[in-house]
């Protein structure tokens, strides 16, 4: 049961956003900029970073939601998303993305864990400053989103077939207040 009365029965972060629209606006704008921008990192790369951090924060709602969105951008390759969750170092992804996921995994634990060797590795494989910046900020943002979702004990659906449906909504329309103001996709 959620820790507070959201006065709605929406799943996950959507219930908290509907409860407090004043903060939902900027939260959705931030997600839209960080996860939908196609400058530098691809949308799939961005969602994989979000998935890995959420998985390591043990946030069931977030890692399943963003894993499914990544899956759509990866033409349905759910196996690859699972490889990233389990061990990104052996996943079938570029060396650059591995280096960036390594930075994201450090940020998940603490910003102070990121060291010069981690940054050198990313730069050696062609990561730009903006890509490193976005990796750190996406990872940091999910340390916020995950805590928001679990810190208020929002409802995480256990019907796994509900996640691809909501993921399709995001892949088609992006992030925005529509995620809680419109009828939920079925």
């Amino acid at each position: 049961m959620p820790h507070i009365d959201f006065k709605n029965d929406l799943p996950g972060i959507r219930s908290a956003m509907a409860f407090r629209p004043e903060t939902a606006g900027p939260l959705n704008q931030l997600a839209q900029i960080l996860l939908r921008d196609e400058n530098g990192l691809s949308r799939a790369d961005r969602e994989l970073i979000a998935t890995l951090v959420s998985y390591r924060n043990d946030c069931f709602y977030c890692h399943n939601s963003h894993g499914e969105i990544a899956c759509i951008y990866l033409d349905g390759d759910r196996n690859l998303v699972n490889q990233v969750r389990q061990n990104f170092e052996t996943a079938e992804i570029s060396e650059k993305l591995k280096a960036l996921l390594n930075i994201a995994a450090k940020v998940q634990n603490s910003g102070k864990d990121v060291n010069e060797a981690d940054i050198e590795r990313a730069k050696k494989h062609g990561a730009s400053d903006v890509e490193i910046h976005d990796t750190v900020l996406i990872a940091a943002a999910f340390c916020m989103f995950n805590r928001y979702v679990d810190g208020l004990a929002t409802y995480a659906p256990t019907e796994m077939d509900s996640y691809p449906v909501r993921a399709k909504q995001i892949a088609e329309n992006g992030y925005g207040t529509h995620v809680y103001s419109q009828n939920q996709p079925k």
Partner: protein
Amino acid sequence: MPYIKLEEHLPGITGLLEYRQDSAAPIRELTQFLLRGPNTLTEGERELIATIVSSRNECKFCTAAHTAAADMLLGEQETSKKIKEDISTAPVTAKMKTLLTIAAQVQESGKSVTAESISKAKEAGATDIEIHDTVLIAALFCLYNRYVDGLATVTPTDPNFYQGLADRIVNNGYNRLKQGYDHLKK
């Protein structure tokens, strides 16, 4: 030295927010609403939440900045010091003790927030909005602290720097300065 190229006259978070202004805009808006918007928690109380989370994340820049802001808003330096040492004996209201406890749990993980700590907050008179905002402020500072340390931004050692910064975030708030930050170049 920061891991990416930032403007040298803007240490800590400011250089990052200027580096990518499009992602900074919703972060600033969210912070302005949560820490300065209309609320039943005072601005000083909300800065104490930012302070305890930054302190426990060992983010020196954010801890110094928000301690200085809290001190300026509260008109004394005792409370911010005491909450960092021991919430239970700090000179804050019973309600604030329960909210700072929730914030400290969020710092660790969203899943660390217990039903018991939520019950105690409600018994002490905390509203659902206050609990929501406490969780989201704590989560937001888990973003900030990782952003600032994950990119190895510069942490000034001169206490006067933080006095100036506190003056700005108390009197201007968290919005971007209309004139930008070029006037800070020495």
